[in-house]
């Protein structure tokens, strides 16, 4: 009797672990069987840092993957919530067991692992998002929001009554600092005395931390909110307390239609489709990616202004924005212009300590933006690695 019990017990336990692990590591996308077998099929692997349902970064990459998969000559698989230390082994598995031809590693922390894997598999094409290390078979790509953050900053500057705007940031790294600076430059253009108060939560995904950080900013007197992290927490907490906010990454309009003013949207599919098209036609191969550093802005169509595709500003807020609404649309057109006739990082620009960081008339180049560490005038709060 006891033995039988024990046996059933161990069996149940094994099942629990198994289902838990299988679910936790995420199923693989079912390979699509399509077209005549003789046709050339490119198998693409995506490595994600978070869960695909995070409403942020990983979710957006996965939406793009689903669009890519509609191509008849593409098959995709993915692995979600991959720890940075497992980059190499995950890529190995995708190449050796799943026979992937192309691997996209979609987080900054995968950088070194990707380069290691690229050395080991010189014939496989890889592309790493948001990094700066390349190899003959590794390209880098990024869709950057700083221009969109600037536009949202213009709106935030017009909306604040207390002159204090709250910003919840994930980590004090150049990418987030670039966003905050662009946002602050926008705020100050409309409202020269307003401040942008920053709090860091030390995680891309931590809803309770984002909640308490937002509450701390509310207690500080902030009345408009923006953020760079991977959940819709800030939007929800701001709305619960009656404050407007800007969505980030995924369409967050539905999370709070009354309080989301606008936001940043990404279209990773623009890059993936372009890149895979060039791979398919043979223009890009495992020997010529060393100098391919794709940087998608408004002009390229990789990013969009709004909290919902096709809606740059929430109609409920247009009236309250007044003249700023026209300014936003004007700047949007200027940045979408093929000549990019406007950019927020144009000199003269001073950091918050009063140092000149960009001389009059100069425009910040790519390297400057990628390694940005200074804090714009108007930023209030801790700023690690401030020069």
């Amino acid at each position, binding site marked *: 009797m006891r033995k039988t019990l024990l046996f059933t017990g161990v069996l149940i336990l094994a099942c629990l672990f198994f*289902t838990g692990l299988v679910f936790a590591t995420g199923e693989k996308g079912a390979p699509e069987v399509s077209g005549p077998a003789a046709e050339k099929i490119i198998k693409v692997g995506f490595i994600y840092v978070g869960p695909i349902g995070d409403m942020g970064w990983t979710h957006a990459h996965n939406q793009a993957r689903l669009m890519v998969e509609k191509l008849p000559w593409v098959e995709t698989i993915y692995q979600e919530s991959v720890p940075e230390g497992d980059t190499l082994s995950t890529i190995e598995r995708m190449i050796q067991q799943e026979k992937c031809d192309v691997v996209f590693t979609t987080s900054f922390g995968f950088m070194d692992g990707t380069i290691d894997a690229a050395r080991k598999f010189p014939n496989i094409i890889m592309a790493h998002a948001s990094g700066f290390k390349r190899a003959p078979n590794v390209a880098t790509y990024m869709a950057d929001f700083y221009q969109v953050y600037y536009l949202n900053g213009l709106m935030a500057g017009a909306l604040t009554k207390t002159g204090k705007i709250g910003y919840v940031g994930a980590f004090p790294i150049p990418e987030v600092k670039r966003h905050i600076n662009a946002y602050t430059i926008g705020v100050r253009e409309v409202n020269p005395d307003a401040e942008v108060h920053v709090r860091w939560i030390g*995680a891309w995904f931590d809803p309770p931390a984002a909640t308490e950080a937002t509450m701390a900013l509310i207690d500080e007197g902030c009345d408009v909110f923006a953020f760079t992290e991977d959940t819709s927490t800030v939007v929800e907490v701001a709305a619960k307390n009656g404050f407007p906010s800007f969505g980030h990454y995924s369409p967050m309009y539905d999370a709070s239609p009354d309080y989301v003013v606008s936001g940043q949207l990404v279209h990773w599919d623009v890059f993936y489709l372009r890149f895979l098209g060039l791979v398919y036609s043979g223009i890009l191969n495992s020997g010529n990616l060393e100098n391919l550093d794709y940087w998608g802005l408004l002009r390229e169509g990789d990013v969009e202004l709004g909290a919902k595709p096709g809606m740059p500003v929430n109609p409920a807020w247009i009236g309250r924005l007044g003249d700023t609404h026209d300014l936003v649309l004007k700047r949007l057109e200027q940045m979408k212009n093929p000549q990019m006739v406007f950019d927020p990082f144009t000199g003269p620009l001073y950091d918050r300590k009063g140092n000149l960081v960009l001389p009059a008339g100069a425009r910040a180049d790519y390297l400057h933006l990628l390694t940005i560490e200074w804090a714009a005038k108007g930023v209030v709060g801790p700023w690690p690695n401030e020069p």
Partner: protein
Amino acid sequence: MELQTFIIDTLSRALAYGTPLLLGTLGEIYCERSGVLNLGVEGMMILGAFAGFVTTYATGNPFLGVLAAAIVGGSASMIHAFFSITIKTNIQVVSGLAITFFGLGLTGVLGRGWEGKPLDASLPIIGSPFLESIPVLGPIFSGQSVLVYISIGLALILWFILFKTSWGISIRSAGEDPEAADALGVNTSLVRYLCVLTGGVLAGIGGAYLSIDYRPSWTQGMTVGMGWIVIALTIFSFWNPLAALIGSYLFGSLFYLSFKLQPYLAPELLMIMPYLTTILALVLLNCSKTFRRRLGVPAALGLPYNREEK
């Protein structure tokens, strides 16, 4: 005045963030007091969070959501009870961890369609002009969810039961010396089952508070390790429901302050405090036998009781 606002802000956030911790800890205290270590709190919490969210979303009734969370959390804990009490294997750690893995994984898959959906119904908020007129305490307590009050009441009731009633003696003796308790006619298995169930139900409700009230939405993995903080808090509060009350709000204050004081103080300093204090508590417990006996580490914690062997 500035200081008063500061204290009010902090304590009011401590109540809001500390409530799921308190609920989970109260349950784990009962579980461990009866001699069963359940490391599945994180799993039961997230199962409760998901069940609570879905039920509230579907029915529009947040109380039904809390009820569903309690049932789901309780059911999950029964798996653990079965292993640690009926089968009597020395695998309490493993089956607890299994529940955590299982809960996180299952809700991750089932919850995919529920991400980012807004919740219209929420639990009633306690607040009245009279309450707000009380200095300091008024602003801290008004505007809090009804679950905040319920959890405080529960802490008092559970403390009373544990230390002032014969039921409490049965529970504690099951965790201290199940053999002696058995000899005295206590049904050890039943006591342990009920205590594990209490733990599951409360963890489930704690999860529901997170998804229905604290941040009314569902996100995969939204408990982000709160279940593990609960395990730490159980030790930190020396298995005492009243100390759990203080501990939860202390941890809550520290969490809020790590953001509030960020311009002046490295947030990591405050973030590590809960863990640091728990380690200190452990050190204190192991300093001397007297401490160990006085402060109530259940002597038979994690040990199965096998009647036939005696």
